[in-house]
């Protein structure tokens, strides 16, 4: 296949949990989806829609029953492919990663990935410091035990552990869950800049419509294991009723834009951030231009 610019691709993948017993669940059903290179793709869907199972396929933690998972043009389950190499390329930050810290020191924990990749001991410290800086983790904490950190600091340390491998595809499952608004914006802003400054590919799973609206270029929508839509963020959020019917929603500001349209003072329905809505209104009605 040529012509696409996908960093990763699912081709007709299926996955069933507990196959053959009463609790059988078709978690991922015939999903075909391309993850565009150098973009931030959001994956949204209600609880149990298959989001986490799908992203675990990206680095081979879950093997599809059938179908193919392609990373950088190669089928990761091909006999010639070393899964280690795939995992160095695809950095997966799981939900509540703070529970996965294990080393005696924060530095050891962050260094674990790159050390396994064969990064020299001389370069390791530099990598660790860089990754800690990226995640907003105070380097004074590097010598501490991960268990002495606060919840927010642990989250950052876990993120740093993946960032230290400098993955070209960064995949995060609910990276901002449980954080306060400034913490959310800080972490998501840093992830966005990892994409913007280095051209990396990012995949974010989130339950927050406001967050994906702010940070994602494209959205893939899952419902009951199936892909029901994949498009630009603005196009996805014009389908408010469809999203609500599968347990999702649109950002509150998109609802305001809809109401403004109904009242005849609208600025379009493709509004999904507050900043954009304000700018459009200010421009359309020439607000703030030398009037009392």
């Amino acid at each position, binding site marked *: 296949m040529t012509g696409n610019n996908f960093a990763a691709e699912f081709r007709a993948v299926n996955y069933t949990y507990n196959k053959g017993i009463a609790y059988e669940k078709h978690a991922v059903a015939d999903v075909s989806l391309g993850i565009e290179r150098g973009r931030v793709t959001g994956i949204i869907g209600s*609880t149990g829609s298959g989001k986490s199972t799908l992203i675990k396929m990206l680095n081979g933690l879950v093997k599809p029953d059938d179908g193919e998972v392609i990373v950088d043009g190669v089928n990761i389950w091909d006999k010639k492919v070393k899964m280690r190499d795939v995992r160095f390329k695809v950095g997966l930050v799981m939900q509540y990663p703070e529970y996965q810290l294990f080393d005696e020191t924060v530095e050891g924990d962050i260094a674990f990935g790159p050390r396994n990749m064969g990064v020299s001991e001389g370069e390791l410290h530099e990598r660790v410091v860089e990754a800690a800086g990226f995640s907003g983790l105070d380097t004074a904490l590097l010598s501490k035990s991960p268990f002495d950190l606060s919840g927010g600091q642990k989250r950052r340390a876990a993120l740093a552990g993946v960032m230290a491998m400098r993955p070209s595809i960064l995949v995060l499952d609910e990276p901002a869950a449980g*954080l306060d608004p400034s*913490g959310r914006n800080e972490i998501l802003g840093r992830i966005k800049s990892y994409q913007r400054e280095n051209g990396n590919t990012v995949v974010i799973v989130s339950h927050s419509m406001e967050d994906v609206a702010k940070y994602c270029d494209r959205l893939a929508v899952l419902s009951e294991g199936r892909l029901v839509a994949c498009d630009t963020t603005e196009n996805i959020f014009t389908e408010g009723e469809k999203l609500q019917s599968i347990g999702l929603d649109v950002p509150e500001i998109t609802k305001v834009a809809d109401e403004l349209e109904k009242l005849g003072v609208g600025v379009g329905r493709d509004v999904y951030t507050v900043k954009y*809505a304000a700018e459009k209104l200010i421009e359309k009605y020439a607000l703030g231009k030398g009037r009392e």
Partner: protein
Amino acid sequence: MSKIIKAENVSFAYEGDTPEERVEALKNVSFEIEEGTFTVILGRNGSGKSTLAKLLCMVNLPDSGRLVIDGVDVTRGDVTEDEIYDLRREIGMVFQNPDNQIVATIVEDDVAFGPENLGIEPAEIRRRVDEALSAVGMSEYARHSASRLSGGQKQRVAIAGALAMKRRCIIFDESTAMLDPLGRREVMKSIVRLNREEGITVILITHYMNEASFADRVIVMEDGGVVTEGTPDEVFSRPEEMFAAGLEVPQTTELLWRLRKAGLDVPLGTCTPSECAAIIKDALGKRGDAV
């Protein structure tokens, strides 16, 4: 109305291994909560919200200051274990992770667990469980396996458990944080209902600003103290203060605030999307634009 909670200069610190590791989580916090009201507590991670919740449930007692719960001063030198034990029955808590608070395999057994431990008559337990499940819209799941419910459904079962114990006050510590949009809507609906219709005092700790618009009163915490309190309208009409405390305001309010800064004469406060649009149209009209 009576005050179910009264805190005067309450402080609490977590002792570390060394003096440097001591963390003063709450510093001279004072506030009052009227019985039957809905209070939302906002604040960034580490601002002391959960510590406060633990004091209100009497998991911990304050180091200093005065805390009066349902008329009983729990910080009194001669307060007895029995008094605290009785008070704990009045105040329940629903936590963040739906998977950490279900104890039985069948939904109705889980809801019955609390009242059974209180030694309630079986017939009365049956009545309470049915009522509680109905109050949170989960009656049809009574005989279902609890492990196979969605996150929002599990949280509603946890709420039913608190209802069946006839709690007069329920504290929700980020109980919607792990839920999807539908789960959040369902749980918020149940919370609002049990406040408005059952008269239960609700204290909701959350990071979702729009959930605060349901409250009678909002308390904003920062660095172990209360920095702002008032009605949602009062608190959100000062977005700069909220931003400074690491918080946000609802998107409707933020839009009005941005337009106001650009010179449009709109009031600040909480509103629904349709109210927000009407306010903007009205202000544009008064401005003399062709609207």
